[in-house]
């Protein structure tokens, strides 16, 4: 669920973008690749083509199911979209170390996955 609590603002180009206390966009329509770059920098990640294709999978998942995926369904969605060699948790852990489902969702402009602990 998107939260309405604003914790801080990112300044992107000429406007401010509200973030909730966990660093997710308050208004999901604010998302742009430039915002993904800034959020990635906060996570210590430099986005490469391998990151962007997973971000696309995450955004497509949300557009279809209205929910950010937990790890298992994310692995499955990546496997379906990008092939079995990329649809592995190891690959996703390398791209988004720590918690791929949560960090991936944040960079893709999605709410925090509901069932991701």
């Amino acid at each position, binding site marked *: 669920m998107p939260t309405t609590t604003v914790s801080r603002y990112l300044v992107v180009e000429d406007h401010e973008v509200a973030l909730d206390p966990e660093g997710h966009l308050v208004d999901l329509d604010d998302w742009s690749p430039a915002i993904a770059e800034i959020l990635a920098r906060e996570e210590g990640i430099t986005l490469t083509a391998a990151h962007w294709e997973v971000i696309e999978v995450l955004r497509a998942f949300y557009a279809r*199911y*209205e929910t950010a*995926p*937990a*790890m*298992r*369904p994310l692995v*499955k969605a990546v496997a379906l979209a990008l092939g079995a060699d990329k649809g592995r948790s190891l690959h996703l852990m390398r791209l988004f170390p720590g918690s791929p489902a949560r960090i991936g969702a944040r960079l893709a402009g999605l709410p925090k996955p509901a*069932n991701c602990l």
Partner: protein
Amino acid sequence: MSHAKPRDLLVILRRGPHGSSQLREGLDTALVAAAFGRTVTLLFMGEGVTALVADQKAGPLGQKGTAATLEMLEMYDIDRLLVEASALEQFGLGEEDLMLEATAVSQASIALEPASHRLVLVF
């Protein structure tokens, strides 16, 4: 319908969409269990069969329904969906009216399900 190995969780859904939060809570419970690798069966009983009707929309005030969540079940590998045959009949619905592939089951096979799961939750 019998299983050599007991499955982990049977979620019995007996409420339709939109009218209460129980259907959503039941689905959320199933998703959490599946996210942790548990084997989950969903059994739609009584009014719960209406949760599977195709072509559902948001509520009149724009409230999100449960159809998108149901479509997502396969991404969580929740693919064993059972629906009470007599409830389908009661509502005048056939398997072809449902948005997902679900197996219509008789009362006799429903009675076998609770014992073949480690945990049974009713919503």
